[in-house]
């Protein structure tokens, strides 16, 4: 006979009082972003200079939003993807290869890369689901493995380091904004062409987890694996799918980065790991799984990007940026903790 040894009332509960709670971190982020924009632009008016600052910022932001989404895809399960960077790299390799050796058009190359990314992600997911090994370890090992593989592939198939061939349209992605496309006298806004791609990704991911059965089942799997299995959810399949999505998004992020830089090289994704966590975590997505916030991720990535751009303009060194980013992360999390504790104290039970 099983008796409840730990009646939950007075124990620390990880649950949250009521859902409106989620609104808070995002609103807070928005406020902080607004404040920072004001601060930076008053310190350096060039912050608001569209061509010099805003446009490149949007382009970078697009990459980091997608990177954050890639991590979010597995955070939904309560997993981690330590190999987001290398998945982006190998996906980039495939795309670059397609452009270089097959002279593929822009979209085809992208699709090839996405497919490769999804496959690698699926492999990771499959290993995790089949063996039950911690996702941290599996993706860490994969990261190691892919690190070697990507270098080897590039040194064998490209000029040693990168693919420089650019298909039609790539330059447009890199340099154009919508303001370069006019019909009559009406021109588009000064938004880089890569931005809609990131937006579409965000919308798709958001809808997936919000509305689609598959997304919900993934979240339930993340919330409680055993309960999910006992509720008829094909948990193994969902794990593979979530990781495949992660790989695919990593690949997309790699593509966007390559588009921004003009070449596909082996070090794509080198800097993806930390931002992949920063966006979602700042945005309120928990490491424990079961709940994600796409909007939060976008805001979190925006905050990071605003800080980096602002500090850059204030001529802080790249390395100093890291210090600030880290401090902000700690501060944000501590605040979140405080909020949690306060909400718990006020929480009621039926």
């Amino acid at each position, binding site marked *: 006979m099983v008796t409840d040894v730990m009646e939950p009332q007075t124990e620390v509960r990880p649950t949250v009082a009521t859902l409106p709670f989620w609104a808070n971190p995002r609103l807070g982020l928005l406020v902080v972003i607004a404040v920072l924009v004001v601060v930076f632009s008053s310190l350096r008016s060039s912050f608001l200079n569209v061509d010099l600052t805003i446009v490149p910022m949007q382009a970078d932001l697009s990459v980091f939003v997608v990177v954050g989404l890639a991590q979010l895809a597995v955070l939904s399960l309560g997993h981690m993807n330590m190999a987001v960077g290398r998945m982006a790299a190998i996906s980039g390799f495939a795309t670059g290869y397609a452009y270089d050796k097959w002279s593929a058009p822009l979209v085809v190359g992208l699709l090839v890369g996405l497919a490769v990314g999804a496959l690698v992600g699926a492999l990771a997911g499959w290993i995790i689901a089949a063996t039950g090994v911690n996702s941290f370890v599996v993706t860490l090992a994969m990261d190691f*493995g892919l690190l*070697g593989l990507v270098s080897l592939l590039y040194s064998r198939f490209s000029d040693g380091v990168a693919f420089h061939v650019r298909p039609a349209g790539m330059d447009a992605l890199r340099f154009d904004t919508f303001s370069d496309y006019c019909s009559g006298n009406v021109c588009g806004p000064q938004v880089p062409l890569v931005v809609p791609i990131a937006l579409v990704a965000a919308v798709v991911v958001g809808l997936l987890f919000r509305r689609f059965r598959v997304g919900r089942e993934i979240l339930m799997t993340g919330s409680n694996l055993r309960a999910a299995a006992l509720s008829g959810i094909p948990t193994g399949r969902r794990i593979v799918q979530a990781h495949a999505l992660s790989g695919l998004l990593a690949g997309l992020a790699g593509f966007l980065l390559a588009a921004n830089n003009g070449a596909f090289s082996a070090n794509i994704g080198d800097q993806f790991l930390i931002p992949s966590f920063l966006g979602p975590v700042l945005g309120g997505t928990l490491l424990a799984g079961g709940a994600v916030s796409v909007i939060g991720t976008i805001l979190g990535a925006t905050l990071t990007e605003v800080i980096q751009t602002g500090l850059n303009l204030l001529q802080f060194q790249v390395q100093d940026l890291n*210090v600030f980013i*880290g401090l902000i992360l*700690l501060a944000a999390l501590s605040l979140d903790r405080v909020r949690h504790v306060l909400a718990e104290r006020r929480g009621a039970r039926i």
Partner: protein
Amino acid sequence: MTVLERFDRATIQTSLRSTEFTLAVLAAVGFTVLASTTHGNLLTADTLKALFQFLAVPMVIGLAQMVVLGVGQMNLSVGVLTGFCSVITAYLMVQSGWPAWLAVLAALVVGLGVGTVNGLLVVLTRINGFIVTLATMTIISGLRYGVHGTATFQNYSPQLVRLGQGSVLGVPAIFIGAVIVAGLLAVFFRRMSAGRRLLASGGNPLAARLSGISNDRSIVIAHALSGLLAGVAGVFIVASSGSVNASIGDDLLLPSFAAPIIGGVALAGGVVSVLGTCLAAFLIRLVDVAQAQYGINPRWVDLIVGAVVLGAVLISQLRSRVSGGSP
């Protein structure tokens, strides 16, 4: 079933013995194979020395990670903290003119201090150790450059470098240092009550708490120890390489996990294996040496290590499943 699940984890203890044994066998076999296929090249004094010389730092880094894994935590800042301590040591000697021993001491204090901060943050904010150390890793990676920018430090304390690059009876000094560190850790975890308390906290936090052990203190101590060991590794680097710069540590994070994981340390906590971690570091080093001897592209090493880590965990997973829980 929950009663038994916790003990499934514990069968790792018994499989740990066999992991250590397996690794020892692999190490011996690997060494022999390498020695014979390189026509004895491996056994020359210089090659051997290089083998062990460059084993010291990965070993200590692996141990630094192992310590926090023992309480069920992770320390992502291990790599960059090592670099930070290296740079500080060099800076103090070159720019501030401190004597070597004092600079070394300062570096160790810094390592210990940062580790303690990590631990306190985890305990006070109750935030996942992964995220906390992710944040501090970010901060420290930037702070490294704050010490002296991107400049390289050289020509500091020739005595220190002589010690670092020297050897005793043909065995590299820093390797001896690493072995001493490993030995001390082994004693700590096997014999000292503080170490046993750490393992109790990692093995069953609830039981530990009900037995009067403070899990919070265990976490702080583990992180502090981890930071200290990172500092030791940093000092080793300063002493043995003769020149340091702020980029040290960027590539040390993944190896810091590879060694303990291959060495049989469970991510869940409660179990450590100094021997396993060292043997695993040795094996990885062997692969490195093989790569150099045969002229294999170094990237293959990464590939192999990745596969081995995965394999190691798979095997331990399978083993604990087969032997199951108590009847």
